[in-house]
């Protein structure tokens, strides 16, 4: 029985964890996009609805440090966005 338990854990580690990590990563990419929208001012794009969107900010706070590192290299950040959504 113990053997079966190990087998289960092995497959979970090999297959499932890798894919959950991917899924979580995808979700956090979308959360980064929310930060880009709310804090667009920091990228030089005014957000006329900042007063209304600021109420969402607390829920994306855990992403903020990573997002700030992302936008530090502005050129790279914008070309990455352009790559994702296509040139305007």
């Amino acid at each position, binding site marked *: 029985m113990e053997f079966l338990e190990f087998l289960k854990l092995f497959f979970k580690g090999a297959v499932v964890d890798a894919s959950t990590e991917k899924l979580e990563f995808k*979700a956090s990419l979308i959360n980064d996009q*929310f930060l880009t*929208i709310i804090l667009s*001012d920091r990228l030089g794009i005014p*957000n006329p609805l900042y007063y209304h969107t600021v109420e969402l900010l607390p829920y994306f706070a*855990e992403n*903020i440090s990573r997002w700030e590192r992302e936008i530090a290299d502005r050129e790279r950040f914008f070309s990455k966005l352009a790559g994702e959504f296509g040139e305007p």
Partner: protein
Amino acid sequence: MEIYRYRFFFFSGKGGAGKTTFSTLLALKLSEKFKTLVVSLDPAHSLSYILGKKIGEKPTKVTENLYALEVDIEGEMKNYLRKVKEEAKKVVSPLLLSEIEEQIELAYYSPGAFELAMIDVLFKVKESLSKEFKKVVFDTAPSGYTLRLVALPELLINWLDRLLSMRREALRYQRLSQLKEKKSLEEILSEDPVYRALTRRKKQYSSLRELLTGKDTLFGVVFNPQVLPIEVGKKTVEELESLGIPVKLLIANRFSDPSPLNSLFPDKAVIQVPPQEEEPVGIEKLKCLLHVIP
């Protein structure tokens, strides 16, 4: 001009044109037949002055059927941002809290904040008080900035729909990544604060659009007799109508002869308020002017 068929009234016009005076006069007229509320969103709070009575943050009784309300928009802004901060304290890790709090405080000074707060107040008044009051007169009309914002409801609502679907996708991925007992996606969405806030905003923007352009609403522009104010008023009317807000009434305030307005806008209703020797301040003096509204 059949004023009684409308429920909501807005008046636009230059500062000092007589918006507050006319709004109060109209509210007094409406209150002869209906329970009426006149709401001031003006930071200067001239309503208290005109009514000769301290008007509070809750509807204050002025006469039998007339109530007045002065909303302190800056106070509302502080309140709202305080709530956002409290929420941040609950959900944000202490390490990040100060940065997030700073970012929230910035919102108070961000461009458009006052106008957006005004939208919140309009929505709140409509939701909470329009059952109790049959007629609601808003002493200050939303500024051009606000109107331009809500005049593009398709854009605004499309944008919110996009955000809602982004949020849905993020939560779907998060849900899939969990292996244990799963709630349904719909259940997760209905509990998600972000999804709920976005849904609330969507409802708010559509309702505001309806409030400003619906057939229950009378949007008026107050004119003064000099050449320049007439030109400015004309521009205001044109701007409102180009945004899809029909101007149904013109107020010829302090005009001894309203014909310039009649010739400028031949197919619009005009109410003439002749020049007064004394400023119409106080209920008694306003009552003497009631006859100008047909």
